[in-house]
């Protein structure tokens, strides 16, 4: 399946891009992150991130559908 992954903050710096189209066999965000972490060498472990799917926070194990927009949210630091 194909997912649109957006990157922010330190993940964006590490990935070297703000977005990429990812073809993957991962069926949920957990599997997808493991794959992308290996590919880009992200240091951040899953427990430090939240997941958003199509613009809303979602559980890690929510099944992904083809074309979903997936964002891994590092700890925020606004304000």
């Amino acid at each position, binding site marked *: 399946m194909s997912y649109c992954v*957006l990157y*922010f*903050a*330190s993940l*964006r*710096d*590490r990935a070297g891009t703000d977005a990429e189209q990812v073809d993957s066999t991962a069926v949920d965000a957990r599997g997808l992150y493991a794959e992308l972490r290996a590919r880009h*060498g*992200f*240091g*951040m472990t899953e427990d*430090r991130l939240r997941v*958003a799917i199509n*613009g*809303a*926070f979602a559980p890690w194990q929510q099944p992904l559908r083809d074309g979903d927009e997936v*964002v891994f*949210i*590092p*700890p*925020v*630091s*606004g*304000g």
Partner: protein
Amino acid sequence: MFRLQETRIDAVTLARELAQSGAGAGVTFEGWVRDHNDGRRVLRLDYQAYAPLAQSEGENILAEARARFAILEARCVHRVGTLQIGDLAVWVGVSAAHRDAAFAACRHVIDEVKRRVPIWKNEHYADGESGWLHPDGSAVKAN
């Protein structure tokens, strides 16, 4: 009203919009870019946001504040992009009949914005380093 914007925040106009004849109390919070953080000298900073989720989460926080406190208005505007020392990064304004609710709601909104809204701060230091702040203790220059 929650808003992200790349241009200067006009606190004067925002504050004026809080006033109502039934309002006896207005509390505002302004977050400015400080010249230091954790003992390091800061030159400027960048804010990045995941805009659609930041918008909906910001609106959720304001709706919760209206449900939880006896307030009349609650508004928040957050800058994104590059900011200089002294720039207004975030503005929260609350009006209410009485000051208890106005103080509590204003504090609640800024606390929740800092805790939940997907906005990230990249500080640029005088020593040439920079790094995204991930406030649960991850190091600057985390990857």
